[in-house]
């Protein structure tokens, strides 16, 4: 079970300062969709879970492992939190090949999720030797998803992974995302401003507005 119960104070947010409150439990294999307009704090929430930002209060727990607890002053740095964060823009390392990107977060010891399986599911076998600059937008996002999976995450965080793609490409990548969620059974948080997209992927959809998560109508 992955649990989040945090408050985030963002005094320097790009649009306007806001306080954000997020509370949810995410069992294995379940995908929670979070929908909201641009600037409402969706990325801030994911970055706080990943450890790139610090919430102002609350608790983040993954199974028995406490990632963040404001009262106990526990805050694991991002590199100690096994998250699979797929960024909006993919963020593939431009100086590495696709295979090097995929292997970057792989642990040296026993891995539950292995390279051949990920390569197979995402159909990226033919891309392994290429550089990110030689990939299309859809291919980049598939590689980014693969890289996040090979980190052996205990939670998968997807931050508008299709936002940079046109409708046709979105329809091409979406089935891969659904298959990844179904195959690996990870608790998944899928964030987007497009309602249809979230509804297609997630088991449950919440909306984020005025700093509060609410059940989507």
């Amino acid at each position, binding site marked *: 079970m992955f649990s989040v119960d945090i408050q985030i104070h963002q005094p320097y947010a790009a649009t306007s300062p806001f306080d954000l409150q997020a509370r949810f439990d995410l069992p294995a294999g379940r995908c929670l969709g979070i929908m909201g307009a641009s600037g409402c704090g969706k990325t801030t929430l994911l970055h706080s879970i*990943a*450890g*790139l930002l610090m919430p102002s209060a609350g608790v983040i727990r993954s199974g028995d492992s406490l990632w963040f607890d404001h009262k106990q002053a526990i805050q694991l*740095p*991002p*590199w*100690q*939190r*096994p*998250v699979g*964060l797929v*960024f909006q*823009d993919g*963020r593939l*390392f*431009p*100086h590495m090949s696709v295979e090097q990107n995929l292997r*970057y*977060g792989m*642990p040296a010891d026993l891995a539950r999720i292995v390279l051949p399986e990920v390569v197979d599911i995402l159909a990226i076998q033919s891309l392994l030797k290429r*550089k990110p*600059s030689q990939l299309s937008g859809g291919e980049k996002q598939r590689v980014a998803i693969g*890289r*996040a999976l090979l*980190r052996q995450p205990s939670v998968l965080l997807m931050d508008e992974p299709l936002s940079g793609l046109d409708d046709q490409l979105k329809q091409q990548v979406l089935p891969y995302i659904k298959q990844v969620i179904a195959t690996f059974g990870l608790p998944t948080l899928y964030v987007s401003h497009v309602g249809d997209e979230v509804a297609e992927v997630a088991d449950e959809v919440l909306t984020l507005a005025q700093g509060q998560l609410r059940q989507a109508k």
Partner: protein
Amino acid sequence: MWTLSPAELDIVLLSLKVAACCVLVLLLPAIAMAWLLARKRFWGHALLDALVHLPMVLPPVVLGYMLLVLLGRRGWIGSWLYEQFHIQLTFHWWGAVIASAVMAFPLMVRAIRQALMQVNPMFEQAAQTLGATPVKTFFTITLPLSYHGVLTGGILAFSRSLGEFGATITFAGNLEGETRTLPLAIYSLTQSPEGDAAALRLVILSVLVSVVALLASQWLERRLIRSQR
């Protein structure tokens, strides 16, 4: 056919040795200082920045003199080095390396710092979410993405060292076969009545060495760019 005399060859080899060592000696401190100035904000940042750039505005002779006061045989640190380890930097080619390294330091720091500032921090964030510690992130993401700055800095430092005169002659001296690099040798020849022709040969040689060094660095840069594509 234009051939080099053994003495001329010695001068060229010494100059190249000093310039190469200057780059090697500077590499780590320049990267560390560039990172500090580019990525960290702390009290005294502006002062440190100014201190790093000081060799660019101070007369080289002044720096040579300061080095002499610090590292000379009877200098504050130099006397200790000599008493403890019998290391003497003045009148030794390592002294020429130190003098040119001090002069080239700001050039190298500036080049690397600019390159570091161009690296998108989003890649570093991505690396950290993939389990990379800050040290691993620096060596696998930040540094490879700013290699062109390190290369440019290295070329600038190498060229600066090849042309270094004032600080070297003041601190390391003008000792034939030990600290007499190309500019010092040309200067020495122009001081003797029959030295004009020999000085001209060294001037031509100096231009040739610089051109070859620049061509080599451009070739290296092209190779690096190709390997990263």
